[in-house]
């Protein structure tokens, strides 16, 4: 276990540094994310201001909070993008998984750290640029479509914690998907389906508060709120601190659940793994 942890940390470092090299690609990606956030923000402003049944605040979300939510969405989506880590995917399809199994490491945690590292640099570089653009808009007067300040210092602290758990959650979830993929010859179709469903339910398409009222309870409990909705709600302060803490606990519970099931499925699949290629 300890050896796995140490090896995992080194792997994490190697990949994170490696990823830092593609700065131009990150810049180009950040342009798209910023553009995307701007469109979403404009649409939200239009509907909030000129909609026929307009309201000041919907399920505890007002316009400026909604706009910040959208910017945060572009940041957090960096954690979600690749359902399965590209390198791991190649290992599964090319048969390198055989070599991976020979290493004296626990395969689950070994791949967990790899896939975590794959996410972290896109998150920091590309996400950082997007948030910088959003904040710049607020600084230079366009605050109706810019990224706003956190509700309070306490909220900001809780937000940072929940971003970290969102990071763990997204890794646990993509490991869950990877574990399913290990044994399946079905191709990528189903994997992609699960990933898209996760993004939709995380609030990445539309803040969850704006979904139909009858779905609100379900939306708060379902696992994918941990991706984006929980950190975003804490940041913009559209949830009381007590409920916020409960949401954090829920995040941790979902992480534990996905790690547990991911490990279980992987163990099961590895019993009858087919090594392809040579």
């Amino acid at each position, binding site marked *: 276990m300890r050896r796995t942890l140490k090896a995992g940390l080194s792997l994490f470092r190697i990949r994170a540094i490696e990823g830092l090299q*593609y700065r*131009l*690609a990150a*810049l*180009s*990606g950040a*342009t*798209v994310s910023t*553009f*995307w956030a701007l*469109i979403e923000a*404009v*649409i939200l402003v*239009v*509907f*909030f201001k*000129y*909609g*026929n*049944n*307009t309201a000041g605040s*919907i399920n505890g979300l007002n316009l400026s909070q909604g706009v910040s939510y959208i910017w945060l969405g572009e940041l957090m989506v960096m954690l979600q993008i690749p359902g399965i880590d590209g390198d791991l995917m190649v290992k599964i399809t090319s048969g390198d998984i055989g070599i991976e199994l020979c290493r004296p490491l626990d395969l689950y945690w070994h791949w967990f750290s790899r896939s975590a590292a794959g996410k972290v640099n896109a998150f920091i570089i590309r996400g950082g640029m997007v948030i910088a653009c959003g904040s710049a808009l607020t600084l230079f007067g366009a605050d109706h479509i810019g990224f706003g300040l956190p509700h309070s210092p306490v909220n900001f602290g809780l937000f940072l914690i929940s971003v970290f758990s969102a990071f763990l959650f997204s890794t646990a979830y993509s490991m869950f998907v990877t574990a399913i993929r290990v044994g399946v010859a*079905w*191709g990528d*179709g*189903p994997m*992609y*389906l699960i990933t*898209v*469903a996760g993004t*939709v339910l995380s609030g990445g*398409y*539309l803040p969850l508060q*704006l*979904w*139909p009222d009858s779905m609100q309870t379900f939306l708060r409990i379902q696992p994918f709120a941990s991706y984006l909705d929980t950190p975003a709600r804490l940041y913009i302060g559209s949830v009381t601190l007590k409920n916020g803490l409960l949401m954090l606990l829920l995040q941790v519970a979902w992480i534990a659940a996905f790690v547990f099931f991911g490990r279980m499925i992987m163990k099961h699949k590895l019993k009858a793994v087919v090594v392809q290629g040579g």
Partner: protein
Amino acid sequence: MFKDLKLYCKYIKMHILSGLEYKGWWMMCIQTIFIVITDPIAAVLMFSRFGGVGVWTMERILLIYSLAVTSFGLAESFCRGFDYFPWKMIQSGDFDRLLLRPRSLFIQVAGSYFHIHRLPRVLTGICVIIWAVYRLHIPFSILNLTILLLALIGGFLTYTGVFVMTSGIAFFTVKGLDWIYIFTNASYNVTRCPIDYLPKILWGVFTFFMPMFVISYYPAAAICGWGEPLITGFLALPAGIAFLGFSLIIWRIGVRHYKSTGS
């Protein structure tokens, strides 16, 4: 010209047959349908939450949106080769082989990929167009159908133009082409915002640089009578041809500067 077209049809047939060899090919279609359905979910939920925006009802917005999406789907289905080109052909050096063949480069690249699972986007798009036109009580007259058809052809040419332009630029940059996404998937999402409320700069970029509104909003306005001059509804085809022509110039320049990579 005729020979090239025949070659293109052969390419497509080959790709369809090889695609059908996979057992799970229909799963990919379901996957695309799922994405096509979830794509406008934000717009639909916003309308159910806020009602319309002034005169802009959900049917109106969905008509404009589906015109743009269907055009994109057509280009994505039939000129997929250009979409993949920078990744699959330049970086691997496979482009050299195409240059040696005595056939049109354009056809060869366009036909180099075809995925049957891209077609559901077109089918659902057309269904939404028909649904929206029906809900808006617009008669399916010959004039209206002509406008819609011209809009789709123009849109197909426009989005093909985007792919061709990407490929042309890829000759110089090889990597880091994510920003083109603004003119593909992000562009048709702009239509979700009612055009009266859209910032002028966005309207300008997507009308005069890349004629996305010319192939979606103006034809829709022409058949529904939203107060735009009728003639603007017919501009889709010329605009599409012009944009594709512009992209082809960039592509030509790119081909001339091509230096082989890979082996």
